[in-house]
C-alpha cells in the first residue's frame, strides 16, 4: 500500500477515483462492447502506450525522436522472426526484442548525445537510422525481405504463443498501457525524473549543477526504446504480418509522436487523451471518407484537425482540459 500511496503523492482524490472507475470499466470492456468498438479501444490503448514510451524521451528528457518506428520494427521483427524460424515463443522472444531495441536506442543515443546533436539535428539522425534499417530489412532474407514476414493465423487462444483473438490482445495492450502509465508516474517522481526535467528545461544549467546529463539522456532513450519494442512485438502478433515498408516507415514514427504532442507533451495523461482524440477523429473521418468516396479526403480532414489543434492548443489538449476540470495537481 505504501508504494501506491507514494505513487499517488499529491494527486487530487478525484483523479484517483476517476482512474479506478476507468480501470474497472476498461477491464469489463470486452463484455460490454461489440467487436468494432473493442477494436477502436485497442487502437486507442496502443497509441496511448507507444505515446507514453516516446514521451519519456521527448516529454521528460526533451530529446525529439522522429525515428521510433526503428524500435517498434526491431521488436516486432525479432520476436516474430524467432517464432517463425525457430518456434521460440514471444514470451521468450520479447526479451531478445527488448535487448536489441535497447542496444539500438543506446547506439543512436550515444552517437547523438556524445556529439551533442540537439533539436532538429538529433531528430534527423533518428530518421536516418530508421530509414537505413528499413532499406536493410528490405534486403534481408531472414526477415522475409520486402515480401514481408507472415505468422500463421490461428483461432484457438494460446497464451503461451500469443495466438488468439482481439480479446487476448486487448488485455495485453491494456496491461502494457496501464503499466507504462504507472512506470512513468514513478519515474517522474524519482530523482532521475527530476534530472530529466532539468535537462529538458536547460541542459547546460543542469550540467553545471552536477546532473550527469549524458547518462540521464542515455537511460531515457534506452527505456523509451525498450518499451516501444514491446509495442512492436504486440503489433506483430496481433496483425500477424510485418513489412519493412510499414514497420520502419517514417509515417509509423510520426504516428507514435502525435498522441503525446496533441495530448500534452511531458504530461502523464497527454498520451492517453491524445490517443482518444486522434483515434476518435481518425474513425470519424474514415466513416466520412466512406460516404464522400474521394481518395485522400480522410487525411485532408485529419490534417485540418491537426492544424486547428496545433494553432489553438499548441501545448496540447490535456493541460487545458485539466485546468477546465479542476484536476491540476498541487505542486509539492
Amino acid at each position, binding site marked *: 500500500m505504501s508504494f501506491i500511496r507514494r505513487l499517488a503523492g499529491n494527486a487530487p482524490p478525484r483523479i484517483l477515483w476517476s482512474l479506478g472507475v476507468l480501470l474497472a470499466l476498461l477491464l469489463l470492456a470486452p463484455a460490454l462492447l461489440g467487436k468494432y468498438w473493442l477494436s477502436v479501444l485497442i487502437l486507442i490503448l496502443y497509441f496511448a502506450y507507444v505515446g507514453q514510451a516516446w514521451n519519456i524521451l*521527448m516529454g521528460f528528457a526533451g530529446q525529439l525522436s522522429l525515428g521510433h518506428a526503428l524500435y517498434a520494427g526491431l521488436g516486432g521483427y525479432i520476436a516474430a522472426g524467432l517464432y517463425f524460424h525457430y518456434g521460440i515463443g514471444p514470451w521468450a522472444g520479447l526479451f531478445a526484442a527488448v535487448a536489441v531495441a535497447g542496444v539500438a536506442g543506446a547506439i543512436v543515443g550515444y552517437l547523438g548525445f556524445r556529439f551533442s*546533436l540537439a533539436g532538429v*539535428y538529433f531528430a534527423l539522425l533518428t530518421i536516418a537510422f530508421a530509414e537505413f534499417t528499413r532499406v536493410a530489412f528490405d534486403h534481408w532474407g531472414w526477415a522475409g525481405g520486402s515480401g514481408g514476414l507472415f505468422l500463421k493465423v490461428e483461432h484457438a487462444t494460446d497464451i503461451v504463443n500469443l495466438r488468439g483473438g482481439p480479446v487476448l490482445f486487448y488485455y495485453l495492450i491494456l496491461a502494457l498501457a496501464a503499466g507504462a502509465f504507472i512506470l512513468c508516474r514513478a519515474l517522474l517522481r524519482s530523482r532521475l525524473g527530476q534530472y530529466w526535467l532539468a535537462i529538458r528545461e536547460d541542459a547546460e544549467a543542469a550540467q553545471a549543477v552536477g546532473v550527469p546529463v549524458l547518462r540521464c539522456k542515455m537511460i531515457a532513450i534506452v527505456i523509451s526504446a525498450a518499451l516501444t519494442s514491446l509495442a512492436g512485438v504486440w503489433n506483430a502478433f496481433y496483425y500477424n504480418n510485418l513489412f519493412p515498408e510499414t514497420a520502419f516507415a517514417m509515417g509509423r514514427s510520426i504516428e507514435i509522436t502525435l498522441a503525446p504532442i496533441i495530448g500534452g507533451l511531458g504530461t502523464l495523461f497527454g498520451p492517453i487523451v491524445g490517443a482518444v482524440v486522434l483515434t476518435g477523429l481518425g474513425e470519424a473521418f474514415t466513416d466520412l471518407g466512406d460516404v464522400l468516396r474521394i*481518395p485522400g479526403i480522410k487525411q485532408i480532414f485529419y*490534417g485540418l484537425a491537426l*492544424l486547428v489543434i496545433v*494553432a489553438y492548443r499548441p501545448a496540447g489538449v490535456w493541460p487545458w482540459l485539466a485546468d477546465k476540470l479542476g484536476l491540476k495537481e498541487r505542486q509539492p
Partner: protein
Amino acid sequence: MTADFLLTLAQAIVNGLLTGMVYGLMALGLSVIFGVMRIVNFAHGEMMVVGMYLAWMGFEYLQVSPMLSLPVIAAIFFAAGYVLQRGLISPFIGRPEHQQFLLLLAVAILLVNASLAIAGPDSRGVQMESQFDSYELGPLVFDAVRLHAALAAIAIALLLWLFFTRTRTGKSIRAAADNNLAALVVGLDVRRLYAVTFGVGAACVGAAGALMITIIPVSPFLAVEYTLLAFVIVIVGGLGSMTGALLGGLLIGVSEAVAGLLLQPSLKSMFSFGLLILVLLLRPQGLLGKGPQ
C-alpha cells in the same frame, strides 16, 4: 575494370550530376527557409510533388511545356509561400521544434492528399519529343531533358544568388538571418522579410518540381521520399548554406546513380542515409555549413 565498365560508370556519374542539380535546387528552398527562419519545412517534399503536378497539368490540359510553365509555377509558389508564412507559420517562429514540426506535418498531409484527391493515385508523367533527344560529347551521352533541367536549375540558382547579394530585399533578408534583433532595431520589416523568404524558398521547390517532371513521373507517394531526400542533401551540404545545398544535391545525385549501378537501385537510399549519419556524426554542420546554433 574494363574500359566498358569505366564508360558506364562515367555515364552514371554524368546522369547523377544532371539530376543532382535539380535535387540541389529543391534542397536550396529548404536551406534558405531554415537559414533565415530556423524553421524546418517538413512539407518540402509535398511542395515538390505539388510543383510536379502543376507542371503536369499545364502540359496535359494546356499543352504548355514544363519549361515554359516553370516561371508561372514559381510565381504561384512564391505567392502561396508568402501567404502561408504570413497566415500560418509566422506565430510559430521561435516556438519549440515539436510544435513547428506538427504544424508543417499538417500542411504536408493537406498538400499530398489534396494532390491525391485531384489527380488520383496513378503516377503521371509528361511525354515530350525532347525526351528522346540527346547530345553526345565524345563517348558520353547527355539526355536532352536532363541537361536542360540542370542548366535551368543552375540559372535559377544564379538568379537567387544575385537576389541575395545585389538587391536591397535580399541583403535585408541576410541581415535578418544574421541578427534578427539588430535587423528590427535598424527598422527592417522582419515579418515581411520572413514571408518573402518563405516565398522564395517555395518558388525554388516549385521550379524544381517543374524541372523534375521532365525526368520522372509524379505520384503522391513520392512526397515523403523527397522530403527525406531534401533533408539528407541540406545536412550533407550544410543546413542554411546555399552553396552547400547545391553541392549536397550533386553529391547525392552522383551517389544515387553510382549506388544504383554498382549495387541495386533499391539500395541507393541506404547509401544516402549512411552518408547522412556519417556527416551528422563527423561534421554536423555539414560540408559547407557554419555549424548548428
